[in-house]
């Protein structure tokens, strides 16, 4: 049984870490980009961003003033049990979100869409979002917080099988060029692409590809992994860099996730996880142990399973 006070205090620490500490994989990616950047202004921007991450850590202040919209992904091992049940967990995450907004402090970004009511704590109707996943073994739970920012850089389009890979490329380029100008997408970014599913799940897949996979990770399907490499190179050949200035670094990495879709369609979404790619993860064990990390490790073989049963596939792999 995992106790609620541990969930809440861990969640508050995660909120703090996400807002302040740039994940190492993204930092490595940006440092590599900074080495190759030869556009004067783009290079200046990357240098300033690297200094900014240091300043944030030194001062323990948020790396960006727009601290995004905090959300939670919760993954449970099949044997995990939470004290008070899942409603208690949701309350703990809402409390942690509100406390950290005041504590770090974060910007209270969340308002009612029509009345613009702001509770000044990033909590409201449907906020923070809490999404769930499960894994076959384990009594642990993973708490993942993502504070994705930005109103730009994300788009959806219904493509069709006849659009093919070239159609996918075009919509990808369109999204980068349209939102890259003036740096609206806060690039260089981790670009997540969702393919298939339904309209809503396609958006979910693309977002998760951007925020729940690390720089350098590759899809387990080798053909999709090859596309990820190709799309990263393609995005960086546009000639656009940080802030839309002339440059060569637009995409720190490109992650693609797929889901089975209607036989007639080929849904596509594109998401940009910005220069402040805020994510933080902790695994909580029933004995009270907490392990912090920055890799959500969301897309396990179980999450990408394509068979009816899981046991059958596990046996086949042996």
């Amino acid at each position, binding site marked *: 049984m995992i106790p609620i006070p541990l969930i809440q205090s861990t969640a508050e620490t995660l909120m703090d870490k996400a807002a302040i500490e740039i994940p190492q994989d993204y930092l490595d990616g940006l440092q590599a980009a900074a080495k190759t950047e030869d556009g004067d202004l783009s290079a*200046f921007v990357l240098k300033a961003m690297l200094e900014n991450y240091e*300043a944030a850590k030194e001062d323990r*202040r948020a790396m960006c003033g*727009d601290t995004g919209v905090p959300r939670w992904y919760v993954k449970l091992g099949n044997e995990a049990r939470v004290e008070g049940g899942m409603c208690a967990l949701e309350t703990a995450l809402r409390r942690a979100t509100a406390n950290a907004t005041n504590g770090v402090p*974060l910007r209270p970004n969340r308002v009612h869409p029509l009345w613009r009511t702001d509770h000044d704590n990033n909590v409201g109707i449907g906020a923070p979002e809490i999404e769930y996943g499960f894994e076959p073994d384990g009594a642990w739970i993973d708490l993942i917080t993502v504070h994705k920012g930005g109103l730009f850089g994300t788009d959806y389009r219904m493509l069709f099988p006849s659009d093919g890979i*070239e159609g996918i490329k075009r919509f990808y380029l369109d999204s980068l060029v349209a939102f890259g100008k003036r740096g609206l997408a806060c690039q260089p970014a981790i670009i997540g692409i969702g393919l298939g599913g339904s309209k809503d799940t396609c958006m979910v897949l693309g977002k998760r590809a951007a925020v729940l996979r690390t720089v350098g990770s590759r899809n387990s399907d080798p053909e999709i992994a090859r596309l990820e490499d190709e799309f990263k190179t393609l995005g960086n050949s546009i000639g*656009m860099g940080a802030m839309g200035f002339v440059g060569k670094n637009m995409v720190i990495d490109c992650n693609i996730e797929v889901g089975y879709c209607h036989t007639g369609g080929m849904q596509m979404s594109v998401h940009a996880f910005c220069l402040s790619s805020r994510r933080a993860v902790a695994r909580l064990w029933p004995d009270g142990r907490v392990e912090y990390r920055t890799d959500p490790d969301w897309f396990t073989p179980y999450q990408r399973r394509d068979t009816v049963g899981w046991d059958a596939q596990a046996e086949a792999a042996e």
Partner: protein
Amino acid sequence: MSPRETTLSTTPTPEAIAGLRLGDIVYLDGLIYTAREGVYKRALEDKANIPMELPAQSAANFHCSPAARINPDGSFEMGAVTATASFRFAKWLPEWMAKTGARLIIGKGGMSSKDYKRYFVPNGAVYLTTVGYGTGALLGRGVETVEAVHWNEELGLAQAMWVIRARRMGPFIVASDLDGNCLFERENAEIAQNLERVYEGTRPAVLKRYGETDDRSDEVIG
């Protein structure tokens, strides 16, 4: 070549503004106020009295809402500071500039050269863009004190009018000049020359959408 760096007062002289070139790096000294849709609506549409002497105290309007809190004792805690995209405020800015004498508009992404020529240039104003985006922690370091927060009851913390005293706050990049030139449009034009090659072999989607452009030299900010 690394860009030129300069320090500027937030009540700048016309000569200081005239000396700025596109792409210069600027650090700011003096009072800066935040104003975005909430403040514009309240001051211009609801005709509320602006709680500052403008432009005597400050000619620098920051399109920003900070990550900040008001402590129980009334003091302020400001962490990171980052701009929000400015193009959405074009509706209010001409009247705001006329009313407040703002000379430095600071934000994200700039405005169009049309905006610059129509009301920035006649008001002797230029646009400074934040860097990144966003260098929130670096800009936060440039906040010497938070002098006041106005209208937080009415507008909430994110839309309130924050008044901050900046000490060598930056970096910012000069994104417009007194001829109405636009840094981002200059960069766009150069990048556009390469787009045909990058798009080679791709095809427009089978299913069209209403109201969209297929001209990649266009911008989405309208």
